């Protein structure tokens, strides 16, 4: 027990330091401008804030809609304990995306222009609209936790009444913009490397997000479980681990089938060094997890399941970096590596989210919340 008390503050201190450094970096960005603090250039108009914060951030927030679908639409009641943490993580993920965009945009004070000036042909317009609406939907989906804590029964009842439509709306919005982040890259047929450029990019984005959703939930709930000192439910972990190889299997078939149809499969053997990056994302994030999660013995241990989930997450991050940064040769002759301010900002925002999650576990009923939260459970009573 004493060990736990000592462990927790150290993590908190590190997170706080990272958050404050990130905050200082953001101040620098606003004072001196993008050119002064970042390594972006005309040839590299997008940097780490788009590659990591937007592309990885949105995908890693997929745990929200996948878990909501499993619990509320497909009737997987046993996953109820992870629904609320997953929705909170997704909500924070989207808040982070918006904050990162406020840092990355050249004119962040005009971000509201996206609401009044519409270009419905732009995939980015779709992303912007979905991110905005879905963040609001996620806030509503999480609001029962706040209302329960404050004992506000009237708004709680209202939210419960519209819970299912909200969940369905959230799934639809997620489907749209998880895939439209892929559509955004369809505009770059000449600059995105042919191993990755394909007309089915939106579908690949969607399936990789579906697979990483449960993995993020496993990853995150294990870490919070460890730091909060409660045992992670094995049934939940194993169940989620069972789902992942199916989705990854479809994803793998799409990835390889697409390369074969386009006649570019040879590139993954010949086109050094790009092929190394392709093999990295496929072996770490797809092939290895499919094998591991399919082994019964492997699924017996929570620790192993956690590391399996970590592989899926890592593979997805490599994939998103591959398509949005490393293999997107925006203009020939330019190189890019993020500056310290860019890295500190991204890390700082991440630390902010971790701190809020830690706080939420302390303040709100996250896991052992009342049974009537589930409408199907309500009916059974």
């Amino acid at each position: 027990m004493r060990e736990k008390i000592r462990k927790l503050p150290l993590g908190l201190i590190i997170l706080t330091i990272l958050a404050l450094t990130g905050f200082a970096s953001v101040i620098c960005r606003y004072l001196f401008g993008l050119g002064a603090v970042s390594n972006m250039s005309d040839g590299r108009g997008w940097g780490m804030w788009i590659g990591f914060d937007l592309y990885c951030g949105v995908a890693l927030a997929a745990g929200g809609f996948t878990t909501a679908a499993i619990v509320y639409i497909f009737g997987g009641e046993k996953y109820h304990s992870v629904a609320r943490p997953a929705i909170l993580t997704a909500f924070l993920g989207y808040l982070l995306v918006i904050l990162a965009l406020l840092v990355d945009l050249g004119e962040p004070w005009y971000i509201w222009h996206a609401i009044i000036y519409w270009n419905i042909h732009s995939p980015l317009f779709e992303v912007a609209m979905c991110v905005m609406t879905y963040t609001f939907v996620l806030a509503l989906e999480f609001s029962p936790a706040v209302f329960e804590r404050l004992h506000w029964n009237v708004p709680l009842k209202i939210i419960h009444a519209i819970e299912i439509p909200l969940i369905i709306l959230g799934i639809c919005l997620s489907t749209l913009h998880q895939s439209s982040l892929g559509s955004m890259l369809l505009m770059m047929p000449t600059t995105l490397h042919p191993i990755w450029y394909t007309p089915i990019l939106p579908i690949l984005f969607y399936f990789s997000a579906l697979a990483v959703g449960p993995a993020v939930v496993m990853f995150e709930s294990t870490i919070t479980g460890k730091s909060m000192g409660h045992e992670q439910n094995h049934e939940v972990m194993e169940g989620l681990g069972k789902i992942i190889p199916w989705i990854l299997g479809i994803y793998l078939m799409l990835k390889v089938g697409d390369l074969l149809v386009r006649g570019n499969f040879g590139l993954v053997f010949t086109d050094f060094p790009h092929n190394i990056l392709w093999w990295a994302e496929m072996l770490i994030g797809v092939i290895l997890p499919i094998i591991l999660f399919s082994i019964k013995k492997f699924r017996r241990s929570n620790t192993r399941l956690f590391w399996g989930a970590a592989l899926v997450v890592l593979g997805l991050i490599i994939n998103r970096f591959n398509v949005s940064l490393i293999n997107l040769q925006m203009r020939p002759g330019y190189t890019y590596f993020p500056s310290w301010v860019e890295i500190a900002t991204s890390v700082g925002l991440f630390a902010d989210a971790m701190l809020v999650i830690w706080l939420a576990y302390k303040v709100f009923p996250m896991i052992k919340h009342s049974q009537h939260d589930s409408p199907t459970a309500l009916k059974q009573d």
Partner: protein
Amino acid sequence: MEIDRRSFLKLSAASIAGAAVLVSPTPALASSGNESQANTNGKGMLVDTTKCVGCRACVVACKQWNHNPSSPVDDESKTHNDTPLLDSKTFTNIRATDVQQGLEPKWVYTKIQCMHCQKPGCAEACLVGALKKTETGPVTYNESKCIGCRYCMVACPFGIPTYQWESVTPWIRKCTFCANRQAQGLQPACSGTCPTGALKFANRSELIDEAKQRIADEPQLYINHIYGETEVGGTSWLYLASVPFEKLGLPNVQTEPVVVNAERAMGLVPPVLLGMAALMTGTYLVTKRRKKLQAKTSKKDEQGAKTK
């Protein structure tokens, strides 16, 4: 402007009896003029690199018209080819390429600037519609809409839009095809100043015909390719050269517009949205019903067990 004049003329026509017959041809002429311009794909520019001597008068004229300061080379050891040719204060520049085949060096000068695509990726990418392809040819930029996301810079197949990185309130900068000069009936500043006739401003379709004629007249001078006629679905700026365009740094791009796949994906958004909503609602109702049935049978079982 046209409509104003037309309505003014109509008004005068109504008020002055008899004069209507005299003024009515004017609007008719004006509208037919607009139509013919639409049929020609708007205005274009033909760059004949065999005529360019690399004097850069066009670069200076462009800077003057757009009030852009000069960009001095800081490092004397670097030629201007070693540094990026375009920046937020340079909308056009000349790329010098040595295409030496024998012992003698042979320099070819290629003017680079926005190509003003017929189906521009930047305009499709821009989420607020700050970039627009006008009917008369130029791809214009409206900074009062821009939020600075830089998607246009990444989506441009020619790598043209630049950013005011040094500014705390940065905007996108690129060649405007002197849309403001064109609106006044003037030709762009660059072609207006070109002393060798390497730049020719006219209707795009006429320029394509002329370019074909030039190739036919001197097949030994030109390669048989008009760059920009079909590249990414056609561009307002067209190029002629004596060597393959790749050697001059003009990228080897597809003939299909860059926006095609994105457009297809965006067209699928409404059906996917509706389909997903229907699928999820259906699944929810099925799950709910199955749960109810399960509850009923388990209740019956309980009752059966009790009566037994």
